[in-house]
Every structure is written in structure tokens, then in C-alpha cells.
């Protein structure tokens, strides 16, 4: 077993474990922290696939910005198990059925995959910033430009909202 396989197994265990812990945690703050651990595990997988840019952007955007906002909101509202209103049984039943059917669909999707590539290492350099940039600015230039306009308008919007005191 090479070092790549070992790290793949460790990272996968970390990802699945922290995912389970995120769901099982009673306290929403702990859930968020486990979710951050999960993002780190996923970034580790990206690095194993030689996609360093994706790995670091995953950390900057998800762990560094979005999760900070989640944490911000949870801390500000001081959510916890005691203040949570008790859900009635009908809602719980519906949640179980819808969650279960989602699981079924995902399972069937996984089962239909014919050929499995558990670890595809380093062979590709699709995730390197040079390759990614070239693809973004040639094949996908229109969606890229549209999304960048979207981001710019979001930023300008934030400044405008800040201006209205």
C-alpha cells in the first residue's frame, strides 16, 4: 500500500467521521466546527488529485468565509437544543421519508457506476491553476464572465446598502 492510498483512506475516514459527527452534534456550533473539519478533508482529497488550486480555494471560500458567516449567525442567535421548539411527530415522519428517498436515489446512482476509480493520482493536472485558467478563458468564457459580473454586482450592492444609513 503506497503512501497515497494510506492518505486517501485516512482522509476518507476523516471526511465520513466528521460528517457523521456534524449530524450527531447537539450544539449547532459544534456541528459547524465538524463541517469545517469535513471541508479540510475534502481539500486533502483535492491535493491528492494534484488540484492544489481547488484545494486552497475550497478552504478560502467555504472554511474561511461561508462557515464564518454560519458561525456568526448561530452565535448571534444563540441557537441550542433547549431553545429549539419541539418538532411534532408528523413532521419527523415526513422528514424521514424524504431523507430516505434521497438516500435511495443516491445509492442507485452509485450502484450504476460500472467502473470504479477509487484513487486517481497525480496523472492529471486538470486542477492546476494554469490549466484551469486556460479552460475558463477559452471553453467556458461566457459562463465565467457572467458569474464574474454577478459577483461584481453583489459587491457593488453591498457597498450601496452600506451607503444608506
Amino acid at each position, binding site marked *: 500500500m503506497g503512501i497515497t492510498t494510506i492518505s486517501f483512506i485516512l482522509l476518507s475516514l476523516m471526511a465520513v467521521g466528521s460528517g457523521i459527527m456534524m449530524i450527531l452534534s447537539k450544539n449547532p*456550533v459544534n456541528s459547524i466546527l465538524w463541517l469545517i473539519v469535513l471541508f479540510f478533508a475534502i481539500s486533502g482529497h483535492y491535493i491528492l488529485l494534484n488540484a492544489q488550486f481547488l484545494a486552497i480555494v475550497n478552504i478560502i471560500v467555504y472554511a474561511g468565509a461561508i462557515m464564518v458567516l454560519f458561525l456568526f449567525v448561530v452565535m448571534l442567535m444563540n441557537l441550542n437544543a433547549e431553545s429549539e421548539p419541539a418538532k411534532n411527530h408528523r413532521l419527523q415522519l415526513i422528514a424521514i421519508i424524504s431523507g430516505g428517498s434521497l438516500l435511495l436515489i443516491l445509492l442507485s446512482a452509485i450502484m450504476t457506476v460500472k467502473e470504479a476509480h477509487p484513487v486517481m493520482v497525480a496523472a492529471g493536472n486538470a486542477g492546476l491553476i494554469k490549466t484551469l485558467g486556460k479552460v475558463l478563458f477559452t471553453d467556458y468564457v461566457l459562463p465565467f464572465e457572467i458569474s464574474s459580473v454577478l459577483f461584481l454586482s453583489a459587491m457593488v450592492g453591498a457597498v450601496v446598502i452600506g451607503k444608506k444609513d
Partner: protein
Amino acid sequence: MFLSIELATIIEKLILIVIVVMGSLVVAMYTTFAERKVAGWLQDRPGPNRAGPFGMFQPLADGLKLFFKEEIIPNFSSKALFVMGPALAMMTAIMTSAVIPWGDKVHLFDRDISLQIADINIGILYVFGVVSLGVYGIMIGAWASNNKYSLMGGLRAASQIISYELAMGISIIALLMFTGTLSLKEMVLQQQAGHWNIIYQPLGFLIFIICAFAECNRTPFDLAEAESELIGGYHTEYSSMKLGFYLFAEYINMFISSAVMASLYFGGYDVPFFNEAAHADMGNWLALIGLGAFLIKIVIFIFIFMWVRWTVPRFRYDQLMHLGWRILIPLALFNMLATGAAILYFGK
């Protein structure tokens, strides 16, 4: 297999990591001393001068004092997170040092040893990522304290760091358009022979240094621990060495961000008015001279950090947000546009 590494490299990197981490700790220790000396100098008083010659042993005395203080963990806090807060703050402060090129190659034991722990091709993004994680130490510690003042401090820190990250990111984009690389090592190599990026990116540097002040939670942007309103801010409930870790992490952050600024805009280990290529026969001495020049640049930046702290009063919170969103972000966008136009017009 891209992960197979030879043993000598592992040992070499381990030694380098230990030296860099220990070095940043020692520098941070003496930065606390320097801060009090500079404060004394600016306020026309002697500063600490009792422990040892010129008060040289003051940081040791401070450290010992913190170790021997009673350690208090509040009853209503979540204990694991309360301990994790300062540890995370310290960890994210030290992690950034991994990608900084401290100097050129050194030739020892028939090996060329690069004075940089990891030359990854996304170096500047790595710095940015670790900086954006830095807020967790403050937020987690603040929330785990179960204290209103702490929580206010933590929330302030979070919104402040997210707001200033935006302007910082855009000013870095302008720099990246100009240099065309994400690796810190390559950026430093491009700046050899006096072509420092500050000449081409003065506005970008100004935005970057203001954002660096905000990201380090330094005065005039230390709203997270504003004593006059929040008692001690996010570390109100902390005592003993846990408080020490928070305070210490701030000084390490200062040291590392000075190093980042020196390598991004001021040529890194390039010695001004000195042609390194013509003196290649000096070998290891050349690398050491470069390291010395780099450290001098860092010391100058640290001095600027202190100078500003003891000169400029603290901002109000709305002034901070006003500066971040309504002045720095439009300025950074303008800088990016101007850089793009200049590259288009003059070529590289």
C-alpha cells in the same frame, strides 16, 4: 508516485521548520519588548528598564509571570472549545511561515538547501487561506467564554476580518496580474536587481498594509478588544498562558505579515543597490546577507506597526466599516482596473 520523498529532504525540512517556528517565537517575544520600548520612546519615558541590561530580560519575566498565574476556566463555558480557541489562534499564526522565502539557497553537506519550507505554486493563496482561518481562534474562544463582552468582541472580529479580506484580495489580484505568478519565491526572484513591486503597485501596497493592520487586529483597528467598551473583548475570560497565547499570536501575526509584505512588495531577500548576480562566488555568505536584508525589512515594518499603534487613536466601529467597504474596496477595484489598463497599454 508524487508523494515519495527521500529521507534527507525530510530531515532538512524538519530542521528548517523547527528553526523557523522557534525563530518566529523568539522574534515575537522580543517584539513585545520592543513594543513597550517604542511606546516609551514615543511617549517620552524610559519604558521597561529593570530586568537585566536595558530591560533585556523583560519578556522572560513576562512569560514566567503568565505561566504562574492562576488558570481559570469559567463554569458555564464549553471547556473543549475554550481551550481550543487560543490553540487555534497560535496555530494559524505560525502556519503562514511555511511558504515565506527567507533567503536564497544555502550549500551545506553537498546539498543545496532552500531557505523556504515549501515552495508551493499557490503560495500567496495559501497565505490568504490561512489568514481567513485566523478568525476562528478568536470566534471560538469568544463564544466558548459564555460572556456577552467576549461574544461582542468575537462578532466584531469576524465581520471586520471578512470585510477587509475583500479589499486585500482585490489588491493582491492587481499584484498577481502584474507578476503573473502565485509562488512567493518566484515573485521575490522577479524583484531581484531593484525592480521592487512597490514601484509599480504603490496604491495596492497602501491598501494591503491597511488591510494587514485590520487582519492582525492591531490599533487603530483593534475593535475586537476595545478596552474602553468591551473590557477585554474576546479574551475577557482568559487568564494565565491561554491569554498569553492570544497576545502572543498577535505578535507572531505581525511578524509574519511584515514578512509577507516585505516579500510581496519590497523584494524579499533582495539587497538594495547590490548586484547579487555579480557576486555569485560568495556562496553561502550571499544567502546570509540576503536573509539579513530580509530581517531588516521585517523589523522596519514591525516598527511601522508600533509607530501607528502609539500615534493613531482607535476607530469607531462604523468608521471601520465605512473605511473598509466604501473607501478601500472601490479604491482596490480602481487599482485593479488601472493595473489592467497599464499592462494592456505598455505590455509586460
